[in-house]
């Protein structure tokens, strides 16, 4: 047995993965070899170090979060056999509305997993729209504020003719698309929908003027005022 072999055996001995025979062999060797005893001592010290990484306490609301997620799932499961129109959207939305933005991916998954892609996306769409409407019900004056409340990072540039050029960066819907390995176009559609929704609250016409296919989360909208009311 050379030194490396010895160390290998001692590691296995300490990890408790030796068969009886080998273990006996190692033990009888240890009883007569001080060098190996020292080696084993050193390995034990190292093994003890691993235990210095102590367990953490899970967050106190973890269980209730799991149960909350399931409520929606059971609700959808019960109704998934019926047509989409028969599902009580109010029930689904009531639950969805409580979720924060970082959970949108989970919501998307729950919906598409249980309803199938097509139906799930429809409900998700509906959810987004509802969420937007809610955000818009008392529309803030500045577009940045709306955008920020939706988790978007927007750069606004006022042009001479009163048109506002909005460049959207770090769009969470687009990073979501990447995460779900989805095509980016549905996400652009969500952005466009959001932009269009503004037309209901502001006298503007919104159009998507530039979309970049490189999925960097960037698109540019132009909001042109319809009536020439001063702001």
């Amino acid at each position: 047995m050379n030194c490396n072999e010895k160390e290998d055996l001692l590691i296995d001995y300490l990890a408790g993965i030796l068969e009886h025979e080998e273990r006996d062999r190692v033990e009888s060797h240890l009883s007569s070899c001080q060098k190996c005893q020292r080696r084993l001592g050193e390995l034990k010290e190292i093994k003890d170090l691993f235990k210095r990484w102590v367990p953490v306490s899970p967050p106190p609301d973890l269980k209730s979060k799991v149960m909350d997620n399931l409520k929606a799932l059971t609700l959808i499961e019960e109704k998934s056999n019926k047509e989409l129109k028969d599902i009580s959207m109010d029930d689904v939305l009531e639950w969805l509305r409580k979720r924060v933005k970082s959970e949108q991916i989970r919501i998307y998954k729950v919906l598409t997993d249980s309803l199938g892609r097509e139906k799930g996306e429809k409900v998700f769409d509906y959810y987004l729209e509802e969420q937007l409407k809610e955000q818009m019900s008392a529309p803030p004056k500045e577009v940045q504020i709306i955008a920020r409340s939706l988790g978007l990072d927007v750069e606004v540039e006022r042009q001479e003719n009163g048109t506002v050029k909005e460049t959207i960066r770090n769009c969470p819907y687009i990073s979501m698309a990447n995460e779900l390995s989805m095509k980016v176009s549905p996400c652009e559609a969500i952005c466009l929908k959001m932009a269009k929704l503004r037309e209901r609250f502001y006298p503007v016409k919104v159009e998507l003027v530039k979309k970049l296919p490189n999925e960097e989360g960037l698109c540019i909208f132009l909001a042109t005022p319809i009536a020439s009311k001063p702001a």
Partner: protein
Amino acid sequence: MNICSDEQLMSSLIKEGDMKAFEELITRYEQSLFNFIYRYMGDFHTAQDLFQETFYLIFKNRKSFNSDLRFSTWAYRIATNACIDELRKKTRELEVPLEENNLAHESSLRFKDREVNPNPMGSSLEERLIKKDIEEKIKDLVNSLPEKLKAVFILSEYQELPCREIAKILEIPLGTVKSRLHHGFKQLVELIKKKGLINELQ
């Protein structure tokens, strides 16, 4: 619901839709599964997400639970797969060259040394800092293991599961578990020796 086995709880969940039984299962495994995921992923926030994901999948797939298997084996399997999926997603996103990553790693380790050492007085705050520092280093070392070795190492060393159980969780032969455990252990021993952590950490 005094001393029901996990499997009995699963069966009341499946047959009677007993959500209390499911809650009891979460309670029983909250500590161990959360810590397993946390150790595997090395990030508290991700662990919360993946813990939720794990129990979501357990619930969703409850009807395919095979009663030949112990619940714990099945739950660990689902958690491990959720972690692996997440790690794959992350490596795809990051695509940072490995070496660069390690360099950043080492310099952060060194930085921590400097932060701790200047104060020569053995205050309790300093002790706490050092303790934290050791913990962080062990955490970083374990996290530096290749995915496959890491899973076996954590399941054995921290979750204290027998090799036979680990083989069932990961659906690999017992011999493979032993050899991965050996290599994981050995790699960590070598790293600790190389970095001279053994003297520093005592």
